């Protein structure tokens, strides 16, 4: 039988899973980015359902009250997600910078070409 705490985590995790899947379905979230969310969600659904697994993990980390393992899993998932997002932001930042540099260089070239064209047209 589930205690209230585990039940609350279970329901929240189901909620998160539904939202994530719906966002992917609507193409508001890419499959690749949803994987970490889904993995965390499944863990938070599976652990409360299997008291034995939860107890084992709790024993592994020396946790006296097994349901607080769910906190640990949630916290680790969020930390991983944030770290992952930091790397994504870094990559986007670099790509953004390179695109902006190329845009500036290309605009200059276009303007030079237009000037040359005008010179030719004026002849």
């Amino acid at each position, binding site marked *: 039988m589930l205690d209230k705490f585990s039940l609350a985590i279970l329901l929240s995790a189901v909620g998160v899973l539904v939202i994530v899947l719906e966002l992917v379905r609507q193409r508001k979230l890419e499959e690749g980015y949803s994987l970490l969310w889904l993995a965390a969600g499944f863990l938070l659904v599976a652990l409360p359902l299997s008291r034995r697994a939860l107890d084992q993990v709790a024993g592994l980390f020396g946790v006296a009250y097994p349901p607080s393992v769910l906190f640990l899993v949630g916290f680790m998932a969020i930390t991983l997600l944030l770290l992952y997002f930091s790397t994504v932001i870094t990559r986007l930042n670099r790509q953004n910078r390179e695109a902006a*540099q190329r845009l*500036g260089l290309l*605009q200059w070239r276009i303007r030079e070409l237009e000037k040359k064209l005008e010179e030719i047209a004026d002849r």
Partner: protein
Amino acid sequence: MTGKTFLGRLLVVIPAYNEEASLGRVIANVRQSAPEADVLVINDGSTDRTAEVAETAGARVITLPFNLGIGAAMQTGFLFARDFGYDFAVQVDGDGQHDPREIPDILAPVVAGEADVAAGARYIEDRGYITPGLRRFGIVLLATAISIITRRRVTDPTSGFRASNRKAICFCALHYPSDYPEPESVVLFRQARLKMIEVPVTMNPRYGGQSSITPFRSFYYMVKVFLAILIGLLRRAPRAQEVLDAR
């Protein structure tokens, strides 16, 4: 690239972010001191009349769509120099801090092949430039750390008044750090086996406009630069020769 047919050998790059107050004078001085040079202003997403001022003063202007920071702006200049086949590039700040009359001084050793990069340094000789105490302390700290790391004496690693040869241009086009680039690039040059020397110069207070330096930014600057340098030492450094060969 067909640029070589209508562009020269020497490019002076002036990165500028909201420098309408001083830029006109800087460009005029550059054109007077280095009449053979093409002057390129990288307008780094300015919200004032920087682009118009630069064009009126006779510079080529590349406008970035938004503010990228001094390093990325400077790198745009190196990309331009690389793509259009310039042999030498000189970078000058847009705020009037660097005296364009000294361009020949920093350019000479690079043209003579004595170094790949020559940086104008404030502190080799005492020329009466007064730096506020805390900033001076920060620069000495950086200079000492970088001198130890590179095993070369560096006195002014924050100087953005530099001349580069073709090899250094191609290297910087690919590997120039994005923000607060100067001290980090000194270490990068060393790792890439590019030879950098310092040339004594005089620096002026800025002509006008606003400095971007605040106490918090200075602190962030020091921490960021030290972190970048230390982590940079753990990477396999890009070699300048590989950059040239890759092209």
